[in-house]
């Protein structure tokens, strides 16, 4: 994208791409120009995987939700479904779930008031049953939680066990559990978690288990969002997501038990973020689909078109939601959601306007759903697929993001791959560079944020107080933990734990069947965590500062 302009570049996209005052046909690279005419539903799918787009399949309204006791979370999920959410998502307590600790672990007890702050406590399948009470899991796309790699096997097994107990065949279930490396190995690093190699094994086990038993389930969902909100820019996010997919697909291929077409379909449900950078982020989604097609055809020789269509879930950036003048965030949420829809997302969650203050209040959650419903029903945007297609500017951005993202993929692969750059801290350093340059730009006022570093006058500065924490999550969870210990069939639980420990040490066995047994025998997450830690030790968090 060369400029005829002689002035120093003053206008850049958020990721640093120099922007011209306007764009023309000469700005679209030859290689990209060749595929401009490909319609939505035609490879390489940058214009969308499906010709009819939202006419036949509206995006899924899919909000992060959860806090307190499982009953509190259940109530909020029902509230969202009543308000028109079309899938539901279970959040787990960060203290216990992310770390695989029970609530009586000393590190949890030391901060017991934090328990349940951002997700419900589910230490055994009993609590998962409470969280899923009366929810139509046989007919609704559900996110079992388990966003964290080491927690996913338990969270998935607990959700599936609840389904089995209700008599729902596993093959009928559709949903996901994410199990994402970006979250706790890059953005929100847990104090203790398994190293990346056993983490990869867990994800490959889940992929294989789902292909056999849950064909409609999205076994893993790579979450570029978590990379983006940590600091990776648009092309770094794209490149890191592709390099992450390479890790999964290479591992499945190495095992040789699964057809690569099927594997590609399993791994092809991916998550990105959108920010206030409207055109670059819409272009990012278009570039992502094109890159996915290229990766699968060229590296893995996949030809089945169904496997070459990337499906995208978007969460609007939490980092772009501001503490000051929080009602402005309703506008920001709307614009970021608009970006996701213009980019052709399949699924969308909008951050609450109180995102920078607390987890969403009921009102903030309802607004997040309403924003999506207004976009769907009042704007007529869904009538036409890829409305930005053919824009000189957006096509040029799509091509440039793709070019830079492939360079980033090459950099990651040259260092041993995505996981190696998490182990070494290289990816964290890239994120930190951007965090710092963004902070400097904000401090200097070069990057303006309304209500934060300009236009700070507000007639009602404290109009939003956030959602008040639930106060009894910890004592109730402790009581339930002790009840499970008292009441469960101890012989069955002990046997399941022994089998789980043996399976951890045998890479040829899939962990999920024994995890299902362990969950059914009411083995708790703290016990599962102890087994994992004994088998695999802890990830050596890279040094950064």
């Amino acid at each position, binding site marked *: 994208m060369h400029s005829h302009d002689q002035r120093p570049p003053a206008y850049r996209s958020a990721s640093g791409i120099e922007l011209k005052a306007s764009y023309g046909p000469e700005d679209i690279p030859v290689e990209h120009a060749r595929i401009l005419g490909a319609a939505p539903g035609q490879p390489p799918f940058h214009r969308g995987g499906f010709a009819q787009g939202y006419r036949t399949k509206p995006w899924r309204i899919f909000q992060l939700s959860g806090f307190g006791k499982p009953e509190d979370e259940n109530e909020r999920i029902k509230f969202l479904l009543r308000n028109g959410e079309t899938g539901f998502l279970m959040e787990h307590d*960060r*203290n216990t779930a*992310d*770390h695989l600790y029970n609530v009586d672990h000393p*590190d*949890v007890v*030391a*901060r017991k*008031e*934090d328990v349940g*702050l*951002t997700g419900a406590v589910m230490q055994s399948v009993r609590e998962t049953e409470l969280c899923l009470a009366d929810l139509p899991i046989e007919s609704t796309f559900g996110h079992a939680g388990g966003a964290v790699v080491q927690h996913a096997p338990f969270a998935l097994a607990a959700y599936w066990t609840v389904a089995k107990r209700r008599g729902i065949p596993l093959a009928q279930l559709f949903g996901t559990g994410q199990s994402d490396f970006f979250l*706790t190995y890059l*953005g*929100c*690093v*847990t*104090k203790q978690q398994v190293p990346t190699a056993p983490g990869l094994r867990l994800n490959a086990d889940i992929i294989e288990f789902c292909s056999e038993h849950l064909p409609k389930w999205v076994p893993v969902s790579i979450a570029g969002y978590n990379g983006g*909100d*940590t*600091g990776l820019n648009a092309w770094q996010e794209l490149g890191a997501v592709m390099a992450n997919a390479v890790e999964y697909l290479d591992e499945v291929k190495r095992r040789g038990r699964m057809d690569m077409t099927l594997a590609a379909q399993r791994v092809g449900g991916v998550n990105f973020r959108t920010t206030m950078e409207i055109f670059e982020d819409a272009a990012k989604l278009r570039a992502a689909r094109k890159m996915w097609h290229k990766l699968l055809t060229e590296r893995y020789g996949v030809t089945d078109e169904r496997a070459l269509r990337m499906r995208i879930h978007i969460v609007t950036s939490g*980092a772009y939601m*501001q*503490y*000051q003048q929080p009602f402005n965030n309703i506008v920001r949420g709307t614009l970021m959601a608009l970006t996701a829809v213009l980019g052709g997302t399949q699924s969308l969650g909008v951050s609450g306007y109180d995102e*920078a*203050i*607390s987890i969403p209040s009921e009102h903030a959650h309802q607004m997040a759903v309403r924003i999506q419903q207004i976009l769907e029903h009042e704007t007529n945007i869904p009538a036409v697929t890829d409305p930005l297609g053919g824009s000189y500017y957006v096509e040029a951005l799509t091509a440039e993001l793709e070019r830079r993202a492939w360079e980033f993929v090459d950099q990651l692969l040259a260092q041993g791959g995505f996981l190696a750059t998490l182990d070494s*801290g290289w990816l*964290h350093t890239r*994120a*930190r560079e951007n*965090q*710092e340059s963004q*902070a400097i730009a904000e*401090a200097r006022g070069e990057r303006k*944020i309304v209500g*934060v*570093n300009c236009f700070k006058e507000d007639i009602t500065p*404290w109009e*939003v*107080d*956030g959602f008040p*924490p639930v106060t009894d999550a910890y004592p109730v969870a402790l009581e339930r933990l002790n009840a499970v210990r008292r009441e469960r069939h101890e012989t069955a639980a002990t046997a399941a734990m022994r089998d789980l420990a043996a399976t951890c040490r045998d890479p040829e066995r899939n962990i999920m069947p024994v995890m299902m047994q362990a969950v059914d025998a009411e083995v708790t997450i703290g016990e599962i965590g102890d087994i994992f830690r004994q088998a695999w030790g802890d990830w*050596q*968090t*890279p*040094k*950064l*500062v």
Partner: protein
Amino acid sequence: MSSVANESTTATGSPAATEGAPRRILLAKTALDGHWRGISVVARALRDGGFQVILGGMSTGTEIVRAAIDEDVDLVGLNVGGHVEVAERIIGELRAARADLPIFAGGIIAPWAAKRLKALGVEVFPPGSQLDEIVACARRLTGTEPVSG
């Protein structure tokens, strides 16, 4: 980030903005929540402001008190990522051990929670706070404000 999230690390920045040895600040996270973006940016700004920053990672009250004493710090910064009651308890433990030690706090702190911390004499920097204000506060609390001319 381990240094931010998990382990203790000492990082020295440019020479102190004022005369004498650089003042030392312990930054610690009160919650088992490893988001490190905020504390990383603040640590960098404080180092650029001439402070020596010790990163305590995700710490309990006992660990924060021990680090504050062992490292002989002049100021403690709490990154509050959880319930305000946890921060209040840690502040109580710090005051019991070293009553003279100033404390400031940052993070996702709702307005109602910020009021409670301010009532304890703790300065609060929620999201969107300007870095130069945080550095100025650190100078004020450590008595190292530049001599006004």
